[in-house]
């Protein structure tokens, strides 16, 4: 069984308390948890979109394949230049081939993690087929399942996600991550009025052993989906109070505002602020794209002259 320190770190990672996790000190290098927690910390930095810090954290020249893979993922996430990104992706491809062989330093857990990291990168790159291939549908690694499920959901196959989830239920011992997966599926399918997701996040918010603004954001999003706009607003505001400028919470706040949480001019203001601060957020990009399409489509209609008095 894992130590409670590692358990906590994992729990924090699973529930999105990346900042807390990243700020925690590392255990002694001699500790058996050192590598595991180091990996989680590095991944937290990556999740926070701060891959440089992750790279700084990682020791140079380690032979551990998981550590190397995390570094590659960090480089991939951090690269602005497409060739650089492609190189990082290629490294991950190599690792996922290497781990099939014998002579790689790293435990089974490390190998599973490599698949997870590679899968993450592939999914980010839009290489869905490759990601699924790498993760493997027969896997018994819950992190891999989480990614697979999210990929299925992102390609609108909640049925497959559900199947994958049901299958992992058999061996996953009601793990927290499993519950998160179930909740994620619920967010997409909306089964039972999002009851499952809502109670999952509410339960976890009530969990005294950690606090994560991400959970508040997640519940806020769930509440938006449930049509509880005012409640969502309060969740999101609380989340934003805890981590100012958080992209995810802001994005959700824009939506809540548009659904009546704020007055019209305020909504526009929030939106413009968000769009200018996070031009790469999918919501902003999506809307920009739609805006272009609109112009194109609107041009197809010829507007007749306006009726005016002849005089």
């Amino acid at each position, binding site marked *: *069984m894992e130590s*409670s320190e590692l*358990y906590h770190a994992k*729990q924090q990672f699973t529930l999105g308390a990346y900042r807390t996790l990243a700020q925690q000190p590392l255990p002694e290098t001699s500790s058996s948890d050192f590598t595991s927690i180091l990996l989680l910390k590095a*991944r937290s930095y*990556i999740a926070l979109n701060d891959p440089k810090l992750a790279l700084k954290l990682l020791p140079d020249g380690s032979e551990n394949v998981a550590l190397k893979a995390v570094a590659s993922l960090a480089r991939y996430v951090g690269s602005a230049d497409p060739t650089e990104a492609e190189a990082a992706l290629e490294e991950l491809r190599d690792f996922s081939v290497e781990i099939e062989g014998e002579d790689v330093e790293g435990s089974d857990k490390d190998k599973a993690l490599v698949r997870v990291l590679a899968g*993450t990168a592939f*999914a980010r790159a839009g290489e869905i*087929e*490759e990601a*699924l291939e790498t993760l493997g*549908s027969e896997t018994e690694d819950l992190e891999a399942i*989480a*990614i697979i499920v*999210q990929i*299925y959901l992102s390609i*609108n*196959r909640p*049925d*497959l996600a559900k*199947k994958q989830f*049901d299958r992992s*239920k058999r061996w996953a011992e*009601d793990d*927290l991550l499993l519950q998160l997966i179930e909740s994620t599926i619920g967010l*997409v399918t909306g*089964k039972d*009025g999002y*009851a*499952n997701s809502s*109670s999952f996040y509410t*339960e976890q918010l*009530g*969990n*005294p*052993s950690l606090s994560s603004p991400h959970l508040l954001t997640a519940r806020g*999003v769930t509440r*938006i989906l449930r*049509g509880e706009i005012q409640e969502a607003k309060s969740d999101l505001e609380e989340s934003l109070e805890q981590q100012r400028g958080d992209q*995810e919470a802001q*994005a*959700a706040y*824009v*939506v809540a505002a*548009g*659904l009546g949480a704020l007055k019209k001019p305020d909504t526009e203001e929030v*939106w413009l602020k968000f769009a200018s601060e996070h031009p790469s957020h*999918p*919501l902003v990009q999506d*809307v920009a794209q739609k*805006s272009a*399409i*609109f112009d194109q489509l*609107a041009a197809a*209609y010829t507007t*007749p*002259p*306006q*009726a*005016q008095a002849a005089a």
Partner: protein
Amino acid sequence: MSVMLTKFESKSNRVKGLAFHPTQPLLAAALHNGSVQLWNYRMGVLVDRFEEHEGPVRGVAIHPTRALLVTGGDDYKIKVWDIRPQNRRCLFTLHGHLDYVRTVQFHHEMPWILSASDDQTIRIWNSTSRQCIAVLTGHSHYVMSAQFHPKEDLIVSASMDQTVRVWDISNLRKGSPNSGGPGSSSNNAGGNFETFDSFSTVKHVLEGHDRGVNYAMFHPTLPLIISAADDRTIKIWRMSETKAWEVDACRGHFNNVSSALFHPKHELIVSCGEDKTVRVWDLAKRTAIQTFRREQDRFWVLAAHPNLNLFAAGHDSGLIVFKLERERPAFSTFQDTLYYVRDKYVRSYDFNTGADIGLLSVRKFGSPYVPPRTLSFNPAERAVILTISSDNGLYELTNLPQQAQGEVKDSSVDGKKGTGQSAIFVARNRFAVLNKATQLIEVRDLANSVVKTIKAPVQTNEIFYGGTACLILSSTTSVVLYDIQQQKTIAEINSPPVKYVVWSNDSSLVALMSKHIRGMDDAGVFIYSTLNHIKYCLAQGDHGVVCTLDNPVYLTRVKGKTVYCLDRSARPRTITFDPTEYRFKLALLKNNYEEMLYIIKTSTLLGQSIIAYLQQKGFPEIALHFVQDTNTRFELAIECGNLDVAMETAKTINRPECWERLAQQALKQGNHKVVEKAYQQTKNFDKLSFLYLATGSTDKLSKMQKIADARGDPMSRFHNALYAGDVQGRIAVLRDVGLHPLAYLTAKTNGLDDLAAEILEAAGLTETDVDDVPTFAASTLKPPPIITTTTDLLWPSLSTAESFFDRALVNGQLEGGVEPSYTNGDAAGSSALDAWAKEEEEEEIDPEEGGWELDADGGEFTPAIEGEDAAVDAEEELGAGATPGPSEPDLWVRNSPLAADHIAAGSFETAMQLLNRQFGVVNFPALKPLFLSQYRSSHTYLSPYASLPPLKLHVRRNTNESSPSRVLPVAVRSLQSIRAELAEGYRFVSGNKLTEAQATFRSVLESLLLVVLSSDEEAKQWRETVTAAREYLLGVSIELERRRVVEQEPDNIQRNLELAAYFTQCQLQPPHLQIALRSAIGAFAKANNQAHAARFAKRLLELKPDPKIVAQARQRIAAGDRNPRNTVEIQYDEFTPFEICAATYTPIYKGSPSVHCPYTDAAYLPEFKGTLDPLIQLVEIGASVSGLPASW
């Protein structure tokens, strides 16, 4: 299995007979030493003792309705006692038996006493005439017991002759009323057996026991008899009108069975014997259920309470009172509803309405006579888990029906069962089950499959809810808070075994109960009940009695002044009590002064006890505010050092002791002014002087000298002179009192030689007379010099801020003198458990939520075989080759004919087509912001998993719908919100901000294009809103045009007047129409069109405006009447109905051709067909359209 629960035990000599009082908690015990004890078993006190028998007393009985006790002893006597405390005495003694009396009994309605004796007879006595009225003979050995049938005229007896006999005594009732039968006429109680025998006959002789029979009794309702014998068996006999036969025997006692009883309520037998056991048997199966063993004591007698679930057993060294099975009803509360079990039915009780409904039968769950032990309720799923202690512990998970049905469902239909001693919900879709034998805690999902197994870290007897993902484990010596996810102990405290756990509403406090108390927490105050009291306990440990109880109850909820509880038979009850005391204490603890003050002002409770409490708890300053009594106020003021109040009260009391205590307290605080005052009041001159010395008040000291002089007190004068350093004064005193030597010496040592000489002279002496007096150097002793004058200075003390009470009491009222809400209501906060429940409520209400929906992901409900097929399919599908499915926006587009929904889905192309087709919209760029904001608000993003691109989630308006063929996007703008915007436009009109109003009305009309409607009613409203917005937009546009004309073409008065007139023809609300009319009146009057102006004024009057406006309007009408002419000719015929062309602002009279706006229905001159409408600048005038589709 805790079937037997000891309630009371006493130590005494061997107990041979027992009898319960039917209504009071009294138990009579007949002792081998000749004493008869009367116990109050609830309080555990010996109430009385009757000691007149010589030798052991074996038989005892209490009258079913009167305060009478009958006893029979080895002295052959039967005694009848009055047990009322004021009258307690032996009323009479019945003589007649010739050997030990074994049992005695009162008849339930006749004035008869039945007795069984070793003289082989059974006798019936009339307690009124005190005569023996029948002697039943037939037994050939000691008769060990005799009992009346509870209803019929039958007696059953047991004898050492190995038989049980049933006797018919119906003749006795017929033949012998009060006169007492033949016995009374002959006045001869003994010997005449034949005469008696004619009144009673042996009906049945039950043979079968191999040894002597010790006890036999009838079943209260069934034709059954039970007997207990020395052959170690208990036999059950059935009887009919004609015969009786043995049904079965219960074997298990390994020594003589002393007694065996039918349980008065359940299908149980209770027996006891000389093998030192009390045993419980199943009457139907005749199998042993429970054995209760004692180390030392042989059991001799058993008694059952006639109404309550209570038994008593007598043994070698005393007696025990016990109850069978747990009496505490299983219950659980959620919000305003209590879910509980009564008579093996799960019922719900609404605290507010008192509605009490049976929801579910659990009769087939476990043993039929054992009630369920616990109930755990899951509001999200409306499910319950019950546990029962029979069959070694079972649990059952069942869903409750949504509402009560005619036929109550039995849990066996779809309940999910398992073994376990303790089972509770730990989350919405998880419950935990404890298996005590294996010490494993299983976490199961709602399908009853195990998702996790935990090894209990301590020997666990019971589990309870412990907050999110936690359990409370109760062991014999400790309580553990355990984290299920992490599988680790979070906290542990030592405690006796905990039986119940109650959380406070905010989950910040938990009460662990281990004994016979049962309770209920409510926000900081823990209310619990004991056998006789309802008590409260505050978090810091303070406790007290709330009210006393006649019978034990089980609290289910406390709200305000009402305690909701279940009584012993699990019937809901309410008790009203006065919570003031603990509310006050709680308020004190929380420093909630408003509430305290409110209580003080409104309640009568505040007696000495509260003041004492406050004092004791160290709040004298608070107590001070509550007290009117001057003495108490003074005491409190002294205690908390409030000198002002103390001074004030001391003045009123004006007793020396008070002043002294005040002086002491003031001295401690260094407030010498108060000390001075106090000393002055008590005329404590010495101390006063010393005080003045200490404070350096020389002038006051000299004043004191004068006072002393006036008082003629030389000692005081001397003192003051000494303090003041007034040597001459001292000498004067000494001389006055004739102490010339001292006066002389004082003068001498202080260098006052003249004065010394004077004294000598006055004493009639000379220097020489005193030359033997040694000379002293001049005294250097002087009063200390005053460095700082402290006369007017007080020792600085900590300034006390004006307290809440000071303020409140000065103001004479409470700030915000509203009654504070009860701190103990459930409204205060909700526990985590409630929270996860609350989320689900909407779902519960949804009537459509049935099993019929073809769920997108309902695969788990398909039958097993199909499931396998599906699994095979899945193998193929899962994996890298997964193809994308239809996205939710695709579904939205497919499911809706509304442009708004297509916009939300991002399908702008189809949305535009729809708008064009439905409303003739051609000019889209104006709608772009609406399109984008609507699209933007229909999708939200979340990254549930690290570093992956966020998941795009789609916001639905039918949140309870997950079927792909029915999902629809959220309605971004509601009709309601648009109407609110319209109202804002109205306000702009009233405020003469016409440009803003125009923009607002335009925006309203744009938004209305994209609103989602759900009913005909809404569609009607929509049309009204469109029309209203159009009329206002038109009106405002006309008025703006008029203003433009006035400004830019000042000569065009005709156009100006026409536009003013048209404006009044728009359909506006009365206040706005008034504005239009008044503006028109002004314009027309100015242009000297008096006739028209008068017309407008008349219309204005119809709107019933302000009196002031009415006056003006009347003037205008008068002016029009005087001068009914119009200077300027205008194109305006108000008597022919017309529409106004929204492009030219000219009238289109009825009958003239016109075209209309396909959306707003605004009218235009025909020449404008095919052009863009100028009002909202969106649609093509005169286009043929389909209109808004009814999508609901």
